[in-house]
């Protein structure tokens, strides 16, 4: 029971922190891209390409955390009956 609790708590926190940090980084990237386009609208194509690639790089770090969470939680989650038995004690 403690094992399951620790597992879920750990992965929950991990994915939340990764999502928060990723969103922060991406927000800065988009903000600077918007500023750059506002300063020089004729470079929009280059800036847009750079923005998409940069966002993909930042996003992939968050996705790594999600994948690890899936690998940790995937085969270890108990079936509903086992959880009901645990809770009934």
């Amino acid at each position, binding site marked *: 029971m403690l094992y399951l609790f620790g597992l879920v708590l750990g992965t929950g926190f991990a994915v939340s922190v990764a999502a928060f940090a990723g969103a922060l980084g991406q927000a800065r990237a988009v903000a600077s891209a918007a500023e750059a386009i506002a300063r020089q609208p004729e470079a929009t*194509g280059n800036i847009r*390409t750079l923005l*998409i*690639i940069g966002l*993909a790089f930042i*996003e*992939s770090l968050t*996705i*790594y955390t*999600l*994948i690890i969470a*899936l690998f940790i939680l995937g085969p270890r989650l108990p079936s509903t009956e086992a959880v009901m038995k645990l809770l009934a004690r």
Partner: protein
Amino acid sequence: MEQAHGSWLDFLYLIKLGPFQVGSLHLPRFRLLPHWLPDAIPLSVLVALLLALISYLGLRRRERIPSGLQNALEMAVEGLEGLSRNLLGERGSTFAPFLGTLFLYILLMNLLGLIPGFKSPTTNLNVTLGLALIVFVAVQYYGIKENGGLGYLKHFTGDIWWLVPLILPVHVIGELVRPVSLALRLFGNVTGEETVIAVLVAISPVVFSHYLHGVLVGLPIPVAVPMMALAIFTGVVQALVFTLLAAAYLAGIMEHA
């Protein structure tokens, strides 16, 4: 490991062929597809056949002024060639078939999972890893071809000679981690979207539920539909990002030529 098969192509696993006798070769009765084959493989073959079919249908009558399917295909090809030329300069035209195929193949594979009864082959890590390895081998091959063996190695060392023992491992590890990151990015995004849609479908509320001849029936509220719209967007963006990164890696290793 038990492979779970759940798509319209499951009938392919039940087809048995044979027995055959070719000269002195005796083949016993065998299955067309072994049971341990993940269903990502027949599904990805289906995507490839679909692409080939669309291309064939669009090119049957070549008009000078295209219309209909031929027009759509020409627009797609022009767009992809423009993208390659944007990222790789003038020699982007030689890479346009590779990058264009990459984009269309990954796009169709991502979107296939949204059709009920099908599963995205990109939810299988082996598929994305295979594509990433193809990009990796292509990048190294074109790097050696354009720069020569020595120039290709000098690409990893940088220009300052006394920093080489520091820069070389960093560059090599960075180069080796690229296919891993490409594969994991595509796999993680598509699997995440599919999982969310599956969970939403499983917990969607059912109204007007009643027993009809002993079976519980009702009207499910489609709460998964907005998520499927987001999954279309994610599929397109991830295909584009994969292709853009492949083009950027190619441009990066050929910049010295």
